[in-house]
């Protein structure tokens, strides 16, 4: 058995080195069939096969790399009674599975998956897989309602997502943006945007539009200045990377095309414009109102919903009155 295992491991390494996603995908069924054996080996203390499996799955750049017939086995790994190494294997492999389809019992599987995430030790790899999978599941409107609310807090960890990441790509659809906005949790929303905005993927049209809106509505105002600063820094980094050109980016993501770069430049340029515009608006309003020492409530309260739900600040509609007593935290003008 060791001889055959070694042969397979060597072959997988060769496939990863060759970096031919199409060729890897053409063998995805055979490689998926290997998954149960790799898990078994990992349980026996040999993790090389599982590592090779995960590496080759990632190298395939195929969001539906794992064959759907693996789902019954995959589900048993997530079972509450299965040992942590098995759960960990399932969590690490979960971004390579198509989570929607006729064979998936979405609600139960998502519940099991969510429970498994808290039953295994934390690591950067686990976090990346969880966030990738979370965004993929969320992009499906049928499955999204089944995501337990607590799972969204994984976004706050802001893991480093790889250049090819289906979760990030699908996670920019309008429905995901809406779902996260509906959480009324500013930190999660900010983390989400910083994760989704990347030089590796353009944004879905609907999602992009919604992001422009939420920057104005949720991150407008004086108190949001530091968030906007973070956004600007991140957007500048992305635009800087895009300026390095296609050849540079293709070293890490060969599937990138010239058209995508152009589209990304437009989209992230537009987002930057919105942030800058919001900054300007605040600066102008501050300048305009400084003489009166009055700040309109619209400058200070992006949305009352955040404040009430998250208990960051309780900020009910403020009457326009002269004087500083209502604004103890006003910045020095």
């Amino acid at each position: 058995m060791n001889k055959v295992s070694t042969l397979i491991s060597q072959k997988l390494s060769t496939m990863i080195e060759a970096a031919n996603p199409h060729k890897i995908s053409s063998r995805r069924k055979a490689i998926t069939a290997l998954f149960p054996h790799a898990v078994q080996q990992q349980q026996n203390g040999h993790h090389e096969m599982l590592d090779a499996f995960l590496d080759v799955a990632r190298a395939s750049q195929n969001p539906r790399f794992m064959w759907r017939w693996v789902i019954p086995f995959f589900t048993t790994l997530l079972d509450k009674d299965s040992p942590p190494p098995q759960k960990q294997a399932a969590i690490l492999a979960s971004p390579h599975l198509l989570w929607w389809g006729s064979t998936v019992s979405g609600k139960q599987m998502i519940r099991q998956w969510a429970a498994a995430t808290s039953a295994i030790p934390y690591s950067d790899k686990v976090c990346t897989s969880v966030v990738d999978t979370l965004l993929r599941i969320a992009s499906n409107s049928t499955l999204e309602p089944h995501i337990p609310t607590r799972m969204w807090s994984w976004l706050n960890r802001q893991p480093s997502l790889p250049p090819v990441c289906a979760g990030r790509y699908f996670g920019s659809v309008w429905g995901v943006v809406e779902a996260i906005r509906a959480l009324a949790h500013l930190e999660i929303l900010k983390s989400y945007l910083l994760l989704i905005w990347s030089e590796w993927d353009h944004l879905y049209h609907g999602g992009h539009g919604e992001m422009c809106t939420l920057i104005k509505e949720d991150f407008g105002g004086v108190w949001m200045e530091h968030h906007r600063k973070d956004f600007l820094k991140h957007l500048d980094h992305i635009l800087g990377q895009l300026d390095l050109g296609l050849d540079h980016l293709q070293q890490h993501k060969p599937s990138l095309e010239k058209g995508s770069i152009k589209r990304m430049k437009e989209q992230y340029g537009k987002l930057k414009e919105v942030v800058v515009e919001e900054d300007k608006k605040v600066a102008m309003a501050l300048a305009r109102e400084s003489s009166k020492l009055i700040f309109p409530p619209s400058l200070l309260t992006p949305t009352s919903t955040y404040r009430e739900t998250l208990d960051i600040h309780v900020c009910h509609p403020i009457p326009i009155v002269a004087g500083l007593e209502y604004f103890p935290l006003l910045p020095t003008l």
Partner: protein
Amino acid sequence: MQFTTLTPYTISTHIGDIVSRIYQQLKQINGSPNTIQLNSKTIAILALWAIQFEISNKPRLINDQSSSTQLWGQIHTANSVSGAIYLDALLHCIKVNHGQVTGGPALEQATMVASLHLLHALSGVDPVSTVLRGMPQHPVRISSHHSNFRGLLCYHTINMIQILSAGKQEGHSIGWTVHKPHPQERTLFTNTLVQVAGELRESQRKVPCWILRSVLRSLSLNPPPPTLVVVNCLLIIAIDLGCDVSSARSTTLDQRYVCVK
């Protein structure tokens, strides 16, 4: 030694007619009553005789000493057509007692080998090609039998043959969740699949999806299957990935031979 009762009226198909004629000849020679007690070895020889008649139209008697060797040799060298005939004849012999599996170990083994051989032939055939459609009607006739082959060593393999011979593309109708063969059958079954995969690879063809599904299912079993099954499954995966498995295969084949024996 197990015995089975052969009665002429239970045999109605083409091979059955031949066996029936042989039965009549035996009756004339022995002056037996309506039923003849036959042991499994005799039935296997009878089946072989019927098969030879079917193939060459020239039946000849086989002496007892060489019959076993000839039977196995005949089965191993059979093509898909004669493989189907073999299986049909053997099944006729094995199920003559109103569906009860009463064949002895030798007959069961012969049926198992014939089943696997036919499975091998069918697996290598493109399900949509005319080759399969042009096959004799024997596999279809197997499915039309009222006999219940449960308990037979090769029960699951016969089921597989029925599904494959029905010409389903990609074998999507194969229900692996109900495929719970005896460990020995599973080992031999996967052994056959390794051979099929190897031959397909040599002819630059992909391993069929249903074989890979079978591999996935076997490796997913809890508790895990016997080591030889795991090795066979890994060999199939390695073959599909394009590995040169000749050295690994020769080692595992030796292990398998010892185990089966």
